[in-house]
């Protein structure tokens, strides 16, 4: 259209003033009409995206945001012990035991919650923080008198836990509505009654170890995948397409086979009387069967098997684009093949290695099913503990906090991946 306009202008070089003004107006009108058309087009485009966007916001983004909120939102105690969580504010000097009104509030709340059977919720929440809290809360509640001169001394008489500042620290930390307790706990830290952040006691400091373990397993799996995937990708990229396509099926078929099928296969084959042990003994590599499952070896074997195609596929597509002339140029200039490979070929494969590596690593750190089925107790990764706190101990705050740490780690890695490779180029095989 604009070229038509230019043409008509050229054809009529001499124009009366009025005509030119009309034309300017027409052009402005056209411009705004084009802009409107473009706006309509974008609106339509958004209209097409909107149903899915809305669907995912409601069924996916909101649930995950809600879960993240649970890691800092803490109303378990304030729901059942409202007087206590209000009265704890009166506890000013946190190096001393709280004043009488706090004790009175706790005593009243304990009696009420015992009467309407909600005390277990309070006891459970305090038990997350202070070991043995369940026992002394339930025990004290049973033995509280109807009236008392001083609730403070009565309660301390019943159970000396009421004479420890830490007990009230736990109550203060659980008073909500927001808490840093779970998130700090997820990285082995805790807040003292006076508000200092310190390392958690040794027997409770388990999470950093679990994160380290998750990292070590994922890193090892990634490295093994790179090591095993490299020659295969190289061969596939350099063979004539006919043979390469056939060999590619050997990579894609496992990729498409159900995760549960592959895990089941390894559980069967890695048993002490399984095929792998039989083969190792038959070939004389081993004298007697070794334990290959329910330990770290089993986890590595099964995870590498499942994740290897994620390394081979991006590596292959990058290697496919490397022109052989570079290697020829290097050798013709006198570089020995090893030097040519290391200094000319290898650097060109780095985009593929980093894409595959990041992909394998990102998937690894969130792995749950395979370690749960082929690993031992000491091989469980962070996902296992998120699941454990959700369904076994119903400590949803802790599950959410560990989930938050995992999600943040994944998002950062994914951001790196996106920067390097681009999200839409994720290969699906």
């Amino acid at each position, binding site marked *: 259209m604009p070229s038509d306009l230019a043409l008509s202008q050229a054809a009529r070089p001499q124009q009366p003033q009025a005509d030119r003004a009309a034309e300017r107006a027409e052009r402005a009108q056209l411009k705004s009409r084009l802009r409107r058309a473009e706006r309509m087009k*974008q609106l339509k*485009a*958004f*209209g*097409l*995206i909107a*149903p*899915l*966007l809305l*669907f*995912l*916001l409601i*069924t*996916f983004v909101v*649930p*995950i945001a*809600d*879960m993240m909120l649970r890691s800092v939102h803490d109303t378990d105690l304030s729901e059942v012990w409202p007087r206590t969580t209000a009265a704890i504010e009166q506890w000013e000097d946190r190096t001393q035991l709280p004043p009488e009104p706090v004790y009175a509030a706790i005593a009243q709340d304990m009696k009420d919650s015992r009467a309407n059977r909600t005390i277990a919720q309070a006891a459970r929440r305090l038990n997350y923080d202070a070991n043995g809290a369940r026992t002394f809360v339930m025990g004290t509640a049973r033995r509280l008198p109807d009236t008392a001169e001083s609730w403070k001394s009565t309660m301390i008489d019943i159970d000396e836990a009421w004479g420890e500042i830490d007990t009230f620290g736990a109550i203060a930390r659980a008073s909500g509505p927001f808490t840093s307790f779970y998130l700090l706990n997820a990285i082995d830290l805790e807040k003292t009654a006076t508000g200092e952040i310190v390392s958690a006691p040794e027997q409770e400091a388990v999470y950093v170890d679990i994160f380290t373990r998750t990292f070590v397993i994922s890193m090892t799996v990634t490295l093994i995948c790179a090591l*095993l995937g490299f*020659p*295969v990708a*190289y*061969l596939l990229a350099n063979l004539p397409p006919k043979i390469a396509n056939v060999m590619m099926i*050997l*990579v894609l*078929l*496992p990729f498409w*086979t*159900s995760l*549960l*099928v592959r895990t*089941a*296969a390894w*559980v*069967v*084959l890695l*048993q002490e009387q*399984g*095929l792998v042990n039989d083969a190792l003994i038959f070939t004389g590599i081993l004298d007697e069967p070794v334990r290959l499952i329910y330990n770290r070896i089993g986890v590595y074997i099964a995870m590498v*098997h499942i994740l*290897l*195609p994620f390394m081979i596929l991006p590596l292959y597509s990058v290697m496919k684009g490397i022109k052989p002339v570079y290697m020829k140029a290097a050798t013709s200039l006198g570089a020995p*093949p090893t030097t040519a490979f290391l200094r000319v070929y290898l650097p060109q494969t780095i985009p593929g290695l980093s894409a595959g590596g990041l992909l394998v690593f*990102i998937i690894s750190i*969130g792995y*749950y*099913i395979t370690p*749960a*089925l082929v690993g031992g107790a000491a091989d469980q990764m962070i996902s296992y503990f*998120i*699941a454990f706190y*959700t*369904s076994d101990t119903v400590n949803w705050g802790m599950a959410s906090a560990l*989930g938050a740490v*995992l*999600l943040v780690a994944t998002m950062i890695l994914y951001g790196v991946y996106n920067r390097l490779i681009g*999200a*839409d180029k*994720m290969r*699906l095989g």
Partner: protein
Amino acid sequence: MANTHSRTTSEKLWTTILWTSSVLVLFFLMAPIIAIMPLSFNGGQFLTYPLQGFSFQWYQEFFQSEDWMRSLKNSFIVGIAATMLATTLGTLASLGLVRATFRGKAIIMGILLSPMIVPLVITAVGFYFFFAPLGLTASYTGMILAHTALATPFVVITVSATLQGFDMNLARAGASLGASPTRVFFAIILPLIAPGLASGALFAFATSFDEVVVVLFVAGPEQRTLPREMFSGIRENISPTITAVATILTVLSVFLLSTLEALRRRGERLRGTKG
């Protein structure tokens, strides 16, 4: 002379190493899947070689077990429903995405792809917390919604890629000849992107059919799917029936993979491009 000679021997050595290691890795990839198939025809009770005779007893056990059959049915119900929903939503969104140039497209793309990126345990626990108060746990509706969310990124990626290779002038030609946008879509765009659409749908189905983590949290005993039943089977006491199920599922994957490959070829032919 001596130099060239040594170079060719070292080259030969490298070629040998390359082939040996590649064959070993490919063997590692394929062997476990193939090795458990014969076990499913074992006449004995054990999961070990050598086989003790040939029998179909484990297949019989699978097809006659109420639990396994229910799980198979559930997998198809949830899989097909989630595939239809995900393919519809994902295709519409892809049609919008190829036209979209507005600001915030990158953020929207990030949200649309996020179900593929967020670790499954987080997704599963998120669904669980969210569905429980709404009464959607232990319901087909909850499972279908969850699997639809998980499957949509695969549809969006596959269909968007197909649309990028689509010549929009064909749609413009249709429009200029007076066809309505709906008619343009059904008469011109849809037949040409159909192979991509079908691949996207297959990806969606495979995602749902193989998913177990969300099912672990969201499904009740009535909604257990095939992978969920396998999970319990492997964990509790692994019986040869599992190998029969595994064999059936592997055959299904071969079928799925060949269909995808055929679709890819067809798509290339339709668009007149190769590679």
